[in-house]
């Protein structure tokens, strides 16, 4: 194991009966990086994190976290990591300070160490003024920040954040993101976060692993992942997309084509130049193009590229969304 490795996983697998939640995952996470696990709900992100944090034993495979084996030395792992769970895990009947103090005691910190550290972590997450209020009176964002502060209490080398901004409003999400960056810089702590928000992974992470059906399907820096798509994506909303996808596929302009939620996604090297030609091509075959839009590749496109579907099933369909974008761009 290399010295600069915070986490190393080999063939890590978790099965629940017949369901393979995590399927032979190999992973190396470097010291000091913010590493993102991006995937839809049920992709196996949380299960992976639970194995790495010794909450769940793996079915197969091994992993070393901060040089300790998760199977042979779980207490060594537990001492070295902090974790913020996806679901709330605070004691609402204690104050913020008492929650932190409880944590410090459980990790064997002395009174002097705890008092000093509580002050410091409260400062990092900006909760100094609310420390002695019962947690039941905190807002959702404050609770999340308190949980991050608690995860930092015992000077962990690695901090796991499982969906750190799930269910928070966009403004609060921004605040949390800034805090995550600050604690990565100030505390020099390696951060592994799971998310199904593309923007979150893009904004925060040094490297991102796209995980789907328990497998890592791509892993790189966000920009490098986007560069892999080589070019722009043109979205065309057209009647009978199945017919036209084969027509577009024959065109030299189109490098790759697929249908997502009834919308054609065409990968081209230069979107601006390609659009008129693509519309002409459709017209030649009697096609009625409803809307067209163009996007530089985002992580979402990368995600669709590797998994063949959009990340959030519950989100409005691409069809509807593209329609709105096209209208906004005056293409209608």
């Amino acid at each position: 194991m290399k010295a600069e490795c915070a986490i190393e996983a080999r063939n890590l697998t978790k099965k629940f009966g017949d369901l393979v939640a995590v399927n032979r995952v190999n992973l190396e996470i470097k010291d000091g990086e913010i590493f993102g696990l991006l995937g839809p709900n049920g992709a196996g992100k949380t299960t992976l994190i639970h194995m790495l944090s010794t909450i769940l034993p793996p079915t197969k495979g091994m992993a070393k976290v901060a040089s300790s084996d998760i199977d042979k030395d779980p207490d060594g792992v537990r001492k070295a990591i902090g974790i913020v769970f996806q679901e709330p895990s605070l004691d609402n009947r204690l104050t913020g300070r008492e929650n932190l103090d409880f944590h410090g005691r459980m990790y064997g910190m002395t009174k002097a160490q705890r008092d000093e550290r509580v002050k410091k972590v409260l400062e990092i997450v900006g909760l100094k003024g609310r420390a002695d209020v019962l947690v039941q009176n905190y807002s959702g964002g404050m609770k999340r920040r308190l949980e991050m502060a608690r995860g930092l209490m015992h000077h962990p080398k690695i901090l796991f954040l499982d969906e750190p901004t799930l269910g928070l409003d966009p403004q609060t999400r921004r605040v949390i993101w800034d805090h995550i960056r600050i604690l990565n810089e100030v505390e020099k702590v390696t951060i592994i976060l799971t998310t199904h928000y593309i923007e979150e992974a893009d904004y925060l992470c040094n490297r991102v692993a796209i995980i789907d059906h328990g497998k890592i399907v791509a892993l790189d820096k966000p920009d490098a992942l986007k560069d892999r798509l080589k070019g722009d994506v043109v979205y065309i909303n057209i009647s009978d997309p199945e017919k036209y996808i084969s027509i577009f596929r024959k065109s030299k302009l189109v490098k790759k084509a697929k249908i997502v939620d009834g919308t054609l996604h065409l990968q081209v090297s230069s979107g601006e130049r390609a659009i008129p030609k693509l519309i002409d091509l459709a017209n030649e075959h009697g096609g009625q193009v409803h809307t067209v839009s163009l996007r530089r590749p985002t992580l979402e496109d990368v995600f669709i590229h590797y998994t063949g579907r959009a990340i959030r099933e519950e989100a409005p369909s691409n069809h509807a969304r593209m329609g709105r974008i096209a209208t906004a761009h005056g293409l209608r």
Partner: protein
Amino acid sequence: MAAQVIYTLWLREMKWLIRAKSRLVASVVQPFLWLAIIGVGMSSTLTMPGSQISYLQFMAPGIVGMTLIFSSTMAGVSVLWDKQFGFMKEILVAPVPRIQIMLGKAIGGMTTSILQGLLLLLAAAAVGVRPPGVVELLQVLVFMVLISLTFVSIGLAFASRMEDPVAFPIVMNFLIMPLYFLSGALYRVDMAPGWLSFLSRMDPLTYGVDGIRGAILGTSYAQFPMWLDFAVLGVFAVVMILLGSYLFRKIKA
């Protein structure tokens, strides 16, 4: 380190107790109500055949036992609320052996139930049922601790395997009610029919109540010698702690 973990968990239970005002008031008032309603009420219609003591004197130790057995087993519910609110994950991810977590919870639960038991002793003293001396008072306390330890461990053993904090009291009542009625808290085990007397002798609470009764009223009013009460209940307590910590090892958040 072990002591710090156990103390930390205990401290949290105490903060809860003090902050939950309604629970605090209920646990203070309840023992007095029990004694007033059941004790005084029943002793006005019942007498002890062939005995110098009143029925109130006979059953006051039984009400101490009842208070202990109910509040001790119900202490396990805090584990289920921790699971419900996700706090158990925070506890389990700490680098701490599971047995220390079990012991912290157990001592927290025992403190609450013994405090309630002591209040009941006070209430009993107020109506004239009290241990004659310091030695007898200490004997009473030993039996109170053993009863509490036994039933806190049973409660925690169940709680480690259950999920639903609403179902827990129902399940525990199902178990505790027969144990209470079999315990000889309300009637003399030796005067009950053979089958009932046999079942009573299988019940750990029988020995706890008998020990407390022997200490307060004098050994001639007890069914068994005090050393036997102590030995049997002690064995039950040890077995239940072992069982509780065994089941706690595999507790899931």
